[in-house]
């Protein structure tokens, strides 16, 4: 691996029937990321189950219950590396009842892969997956038109599915969409270019993943530094040291920058940006550093250091697209803890504006219940201001979760409109 190799996170949603597990198995197998003892174990299981040959789908098996039922329930993470990049796959289920797990996997992804069975074209599930990718603002989408072997590798079928997909995606906020015709089962256009589809001029899936431009996926404009904790070493050489430890959420900070601490509004200048290895001239997302300031200001966890000429909005009233994640439905006017970066406050859901019908993607203003997997636009009031950006501009300072104080469970995730 070279020193400048990047990390790319992508998500796959789908069920065994779509060929999702076969696709992942194929990527790992053809990129030689599968070990011999894993292969032997799977050959053994394939034989026991009476399958012909090696069932690549078995590579993605997880927990005992999932193996028994042959389904993905929870997000599983898988890893592979090529000479060009390191990849993390968030492998998620595709069924409607696991929408929350898809959203979890999608929240950190650079790329969403959406699987379409070439025989069936765009179906409700495709719409749902595209909608989630656009809702979570995943920067890139790869539409894998799979099982091309079952439609005679037909270019017409491929073009027709592209038209169907563009019909639905034109109504969504998606920017970079690519289409790849493939047969995961036979390995066409996954790692190796297909000989069966000479009409396809594009690259196979792996090459696409290895070369797509992802450096711009992180916001480099709005400098935001949520403080996680304060470092006070109290030891020789550092008696007066007061460092604000955190991970740059977005943008770039430089030594000498004029900064404002929110919510207090105090201003100062960056005195140093420290790491164990060396003092830095600048820090950018997603680096973890410790920042010291010229002036002694009261700063603690939950505060945010920003550049004085570019501040987030401080607000107690926020509108979010909320996905309900828990079995217990939302209680009317109940209070929750709200977590936003390192900040925690109390919050109340004041109003449900509308709810999406996740199959038709139509808005429903009459059904106001928030049940598991529901996606709704809501108005939230917090006890103290949060320093927010819109999720479209900033995935880190634009996202929140709600925690139920009675159970300590994470019950909802929201994207600030």
């Amino acid at each position, binding site marked *: 691996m070279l020193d*400048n190799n990047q990390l790319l996170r992508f998500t796959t949603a789908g069920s065994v029937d779509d060929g999702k597990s076969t696709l992942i198995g194929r990527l790992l197998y053809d990129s030689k990321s599968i070990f*011999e003892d894993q292969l032997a174990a799977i050959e053994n299981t394939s034989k026991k189950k009476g399958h012909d040959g090696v069932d690549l789908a078995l590579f993605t098996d997880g*927990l005992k219950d999932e193996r028994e039922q042959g389904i993905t329930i929870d*997000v599983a993470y898988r*890893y592979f590396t090529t000479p060009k990049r390191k990849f993390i796959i968030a492998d998620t289920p595709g069924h409607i009842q696991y929408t929350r797990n898809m959203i*979890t996997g999608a929240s950190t992804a650079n790329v969403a892969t959406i699987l379409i069975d070439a025989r069936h074209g765009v179906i409700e599930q495709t719409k749902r997956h595209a909608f989630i990718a656009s809702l979570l603002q995943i920067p890139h989408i790869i539409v894998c038109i799979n099982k091309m072997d079952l439609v005679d590798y037909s270019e017409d079928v491929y073009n027709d599915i592209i038209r169907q997909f563009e019909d639905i995606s034109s109504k969504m906020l998606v920017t970079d969409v690519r289409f790849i015709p493939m047969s995961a089962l036979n390995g066409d256009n996954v790692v190796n270019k297909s000989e069966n589809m000479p009409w396809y001029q594009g690259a196979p899936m792996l090459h696409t993943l290895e070369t797509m431009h992802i*450096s711009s996926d992180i916001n480099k404009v709005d400098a935001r530094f949520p403080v996680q904790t304060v470092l006070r070493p109290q030891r020789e050489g550092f008696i007066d040291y007061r460092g604000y*430890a955190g991970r740059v959420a977005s943008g770039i900070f430089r030594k000498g920058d004029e900064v404002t601490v929110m919510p207090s509004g105090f201003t100062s200048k960056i005195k140093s940006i420290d790491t164990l290895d060396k003092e830095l001239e600048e820090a950018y997302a997603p680096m*973890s550093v410790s920042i010291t300031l010229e002036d002694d200001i009261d700063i603690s966890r939950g505060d945010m250091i920003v550049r004085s000429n570019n501040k987030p909005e401080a607000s107690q009233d926020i509108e979010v697209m909320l996905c309900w994640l828990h079995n217990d439905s939302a209680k009317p006017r109940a209070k929750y803890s709200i977590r936003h970066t390192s900040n925690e406050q109390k919050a109340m859901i004041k109003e449900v504006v509308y709810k999406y019908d996740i199959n038709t993607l139509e808005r429903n203003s009459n059904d106001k219940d928030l049940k598991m997997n529901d996606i709704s636009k809501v108005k939230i009031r917090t006890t103290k201001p949060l320093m927010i950006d819109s999720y479209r501009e900033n995935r880190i300072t634009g996202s929140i979760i709600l925690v139920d104080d009675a159970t300590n469970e994470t019950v909802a*995730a929201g994207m600030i409109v």
Partner: protein
Amino acid sequence: MSKYYLNYLDELESEAIYILREVWAQFQNPVILFSGGKDSILVAHLAKKAFYPAKIPFPFMHVDTGHNFPETIQFRDNIIKDLDAQLIVGSVQESIDDGRVAEEKGKNATRNALQITTLLDAIETNKVDCAIGGGRRDEEKARAKERFFSHRDDFGQWDPKNQRPELWNILNGKHFQGEHFRAFPISNWTEMDVWNYIKRENIAIPSLYFAHEREVVRRDGTWIPNSEFLILEEHEEVVTKKIRFRTLGDITITGGDESDADTLEKIAAEVAGMRNTERGNRSDDKRSESAMEDRKRQGYF
């Protein structure tokens, strides 16, 4: 290409530092679980970075099975001294002497499963609310399902089907008294990432990872080190081989590979060409298809 991006190792490092700082901010009494293996050494190295110029604010906790490689214990004591850290030892031998657990019987008996009781006892006695571990998702299929912050109920049990969703980088460590969390800052690292990083940062690791001459016995397709705990079968013969260990567990269950890799460069090159998984020589994982999941549910590392 713009210069404002991190390479994959820097990004993994930054993510781990972020998680370690979240642990410190969200829990009252966290510890680092330290086995003396490379993954826990890596976690200690990352913790040093996370809190510099302050000291690592966590004590280290070692679950001592009594079946150690002597080199591991020596290494543990040195690193604790270097870091000026506090060491808490949970002793499996004491758990046996107290009648909390019973020793396994037979040729392949190990103290692997017994560690669960000792670990949970040590967590309870020391009122630990978060135990930081070096578990990685690429190690094993049950570990692939782990969260960064993983909840354990008041019996120390993991409920993999009912985990808190983790979105973006927001971690929820809220818990009731008696419950605790496990935190896994190097979840997203693979074995290869660990070695590339150890090489880049020149991190000291026990000599057992480097090729060395050792008395071993061939058993179940691997070289098991000779020790006072090993019960030899009639047909088995002790031989001297140049081997190295890819993972370190108890001396009774950790198999070595024949190797000439005696530098970090050679080890990284050797790992890159490996055709078997890292834990393939660990008999504790081979007992059944769900051996790891079953142990983890009960409270294992």
